[in-house]
């Protein structure tokens, strides 16, 4: 990790022109090992739970995940009581009641994740005009997927010495284009205290939250891989069989 940062810094320094951050080439994507890589990849449950903790305690202050429902957390290994507890920490608007008024109630497992903001306008207002994107699909919505998000979390390097950056933007070597992102560095060492005792370095937090976000974007990955292995094996056998039958039938002609 430090090597990366040094290399990135060097690249950035070499590439940066005076006063402009734009010329530094984007750092190549880190090639992290993910538990869900490959044909037989699965989601590391422990990492998912830690990643969910990072999302809940840090990211959810600004980022919604409206495509997830609290009941979906069952896939992380939580039981019903725990899920009800997670949900109950948040409030949703329901109604109208018999008097015609909307009211607040505790969220249920069947509710979607509660957004930190009422609507896009409030989100932009609080974030200097920028809209923190919904994270439900972010892994599939960005070139490089989990590697990109991991790299982004680790990409808040020292900005080039003589560059001028507006107050509302931050320098991130992984962010494409002019490397100026509206999000301040979200993760630091020990930003959270992990329930399972894992040391919460920036790398670890980035890895875990990226794993959680990968699951959030593709919750059916494991079922897809499992089914795929069976289907492809079946088809290979069937195709081989069909080939043998084809040859035998065509022997009459050849």
């Amino acid at each position, binding site marked *: 990790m430090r090597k990366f940062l040094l290399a990135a810094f060097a690249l950035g320094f070499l590439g940066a022109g005076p006063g402009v951050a734009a010329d530094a080439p984007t750092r190549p994507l880190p090639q992290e090992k993910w538990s869900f890589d490959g044909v037989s990849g699965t989601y590391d449950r422990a990492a998912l739970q830690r990643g969910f903790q990072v999302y809940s305690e840090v990211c959810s202050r600004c980022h919604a995940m409206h495509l997830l*429902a609290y*009941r979906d957390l069952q896939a992380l290994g939580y039981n019903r009581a725990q899920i009800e507890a997670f949900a109950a920490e948040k409030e949703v608007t329901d109604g109208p009641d018999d008097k015609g008024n909307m009211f607040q109630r505790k969220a*249920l*497992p*069947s509710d979607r994740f509660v957004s930190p903001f009422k609507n896009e306008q409030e989100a932009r207002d609080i974030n200097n005009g920028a809209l923190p994107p919904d994270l439900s699909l972010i892994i599939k919505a960005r070139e490089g997927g989990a590697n990109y998000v991991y790299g982004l979390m680790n990409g808040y390097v020292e900005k080039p010495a003589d560059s001028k950056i507006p107050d509302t933007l931050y320098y991130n070597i992984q962010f494409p284009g002019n490397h100026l992102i509206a999000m301040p560095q979200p993760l630091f060492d020990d930003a959270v205290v992990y329930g399972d005792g894992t040391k919460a370095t920036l790398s670890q937090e980035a890895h875990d939250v990226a794993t959680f976000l990968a699951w959030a974007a593709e919750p059916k990955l494991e079922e897809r891989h499992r089914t795929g292995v069976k289907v492809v094996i*079946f*088809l290979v*056998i*069937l195709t081989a*069989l*069909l080939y*043998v*039958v084809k040859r*035998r*039938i065509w022997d009459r002609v050849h």
Partner: protein
Amino acid sequence: MVDTARNGPTMAHEEDQASRRDFLVIAAAAMGVVGGAIAVWPLIDSMSPAADTLALSQTDVDLTPVALGQRLTVKWRGNPVFIDHRTPDVIKAAEAVDISVLRDPETDEARVQKPEWLILVGVCTHLGCTPLGQRPSDPRGEFGGWYCPCHGSEYDTSGRIRKGPAPLNLAIPEYKFLNNTKIRIG
């Protein structure tokens, strides 16, 4: 080539080949059919209720706001559910009914878990209308329970059909008490 050599082993070899070919054809065809059936299953299953629908298959209801003698309507699986906080008098009267006169004989005890809480699916068993009786201003029919405006079915204080065209008592949904004041329907 010698004639005798041609007829004997060659014929047997051809028959052998033919039966091996048949076996392979049958094996391939069988695999194809099995594959086809397996492929059809996801299509059919995709029409089953989805996870978000199933998540709404249970509703938790807090009973504390329902005072003695009051009735509450909640929505469950798209239908109304009637919750009646019955007084001791109403309970006694419901238990006292001679079930042999009922079209759908059922004791009151069989229809409740705690006698003061009557939980019914508010769908008339005739043709599906929502019976009246939940609001204090609603008619309740002559048996004090519920009255269906569509065709005149009348239910008693245990939700049993007493008069009118409905064939069965109002259904009891699956429910359980999570504690004294909360039930989970479904």
